[in-house]
């Protein structure tokens, strides 16, 4: 970790040890925080008012899950939720590369959401059986919400794939563009979620006649802090207030 000290700027903070049971929670919290920010970027400019509201609500759910996890981590480590969200640099974030990818067009946003929802539908039932009661509670709640998000992203996948030539082409482009970030989801212990995810995504492809790229190239690194350049810009915007006025409270 960098030793550099810049006056007034929150410094990086130590994360749980890699072998701690808390370590994966940082990744889950970061996934939800970063995606919350991304879908929130649609507010005021989604294709329809109803979609504006939908994406805003989905973002709120993700933000709520992230906050609950940061609070839980913070209790164990003597930190506040803001220190996790606002006090870390991009190299200290552990989110998947998928969730930090720019919104692109509406098809990109929906394909990203669909891939992520299919993953969350595997993750939360597993964590709902956690020995850690707090984590189990957060997961049980998050699962109900993920099911609702999935209904939304799944519905839009079908509608766009079966819509016009233009909408179908856009979904294709989005799948082609985002596919390379899906392999990372199943790294390490998360390999157990692969079959369930493949099933959900495979059903969608079967139903719509869409396909995934032949190119096996997969990009990874998010879970150890090596991100695409997009995360830096996202954090700059998200953390601006806390970095300008450290410790500011509403």
């Amino acid at each position, binding site marked *: 970790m960098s030793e550099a000290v810049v006056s007034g700027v929150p410094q990086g903070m130590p994360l749980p040890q890699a072998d701690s049971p808390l370590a994966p929670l940082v990744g889950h919290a970061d996934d939800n925080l970063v995606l*919350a920010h991304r879908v929130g970027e649609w507010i005021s400019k989604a294709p329809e008012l*109803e979609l504006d*509201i*939908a994406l*805003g*609500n*989905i*973002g*709120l*759910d*993700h*933000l*709520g*899950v992230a*906050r*609950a996890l940061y609070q839980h981590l913070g209790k164990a480590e003597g930190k506040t939720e803001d220190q996790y969200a606002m006090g870390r640099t991009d190299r200290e974030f552990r989110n998947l590369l998928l969730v930090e990818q720019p919104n692109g067009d509406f098809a990109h946003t929906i394909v990203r959401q669909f891939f992520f929802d299919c993953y969350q539908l595997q993750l939360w039932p597993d964590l709902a059986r956690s020995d850690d*009661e*707090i984590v*189990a*509670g*957060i997961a*049980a*709640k*998050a699962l*109900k*919400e993920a099911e*609702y998000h999935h*209904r*939304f992203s799944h*519905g839009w996948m079908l509608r766009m794939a079966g819509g016009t030539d233009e909408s179908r082409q856009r979904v294709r482009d989005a799948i082609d563009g985002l596919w390379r970030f899906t392999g990372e989801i199943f790294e390490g212990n998360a390999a157990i979620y692969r079959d369930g995810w493949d099933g959900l995504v495979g059903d969608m492809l079967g139903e719509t006649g869409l396909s995934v790229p032949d190119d096996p190239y997969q990009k990874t690194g998010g879970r150890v802090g090596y991100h695409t350049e997009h995360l830096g810009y996202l954090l700059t915007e998200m953390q601006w207030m806390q970095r300008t006025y450290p410790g500011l409270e509403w």
Partner: protein
Amino acid sequence: MVDTLTHAREVVARVVDPEIPVLTIEDLGVLRDVEQDGERVVVTITPTYSGCPAMGQIEDDIKRALNRAGFADVGIKVVYQPAWTTEWMSKEARRKLEDFGIAPPTAPADVRCPKCRRGDSRLIAQFGSTACKALMVCSACGDPFDYFKEH
């Protein structure tokens, strides 16, 4: 003379939801417990949705209500387990909700218009004005209305 814990419970149970002011947090099932620990009153609540923006407001309202009633030391505990469900909403709460113009939680096929009270409505948008609601339209009177989602 009611004991202090009973009094604290009554005060907390009267706190209303900031977005649906006809319902108290007790009606909604958000209020889970009120305990006393010496001078301190500890209120346990559970969020309807993880990101419900009303939760912060509800916490502040509980504190304010208790402070005003003479309880200076108030703690709020947020629990996630068991996860909140609309099944905890009382019959009375459902009636109040419908009178207020929001269709109470029920299976989507059984939703009836809170204005003309007829069935046969359809979903316009899966996400409504708050996280807990969806937007529907009545096929009989043509009015759109909020539907409190079954969750």
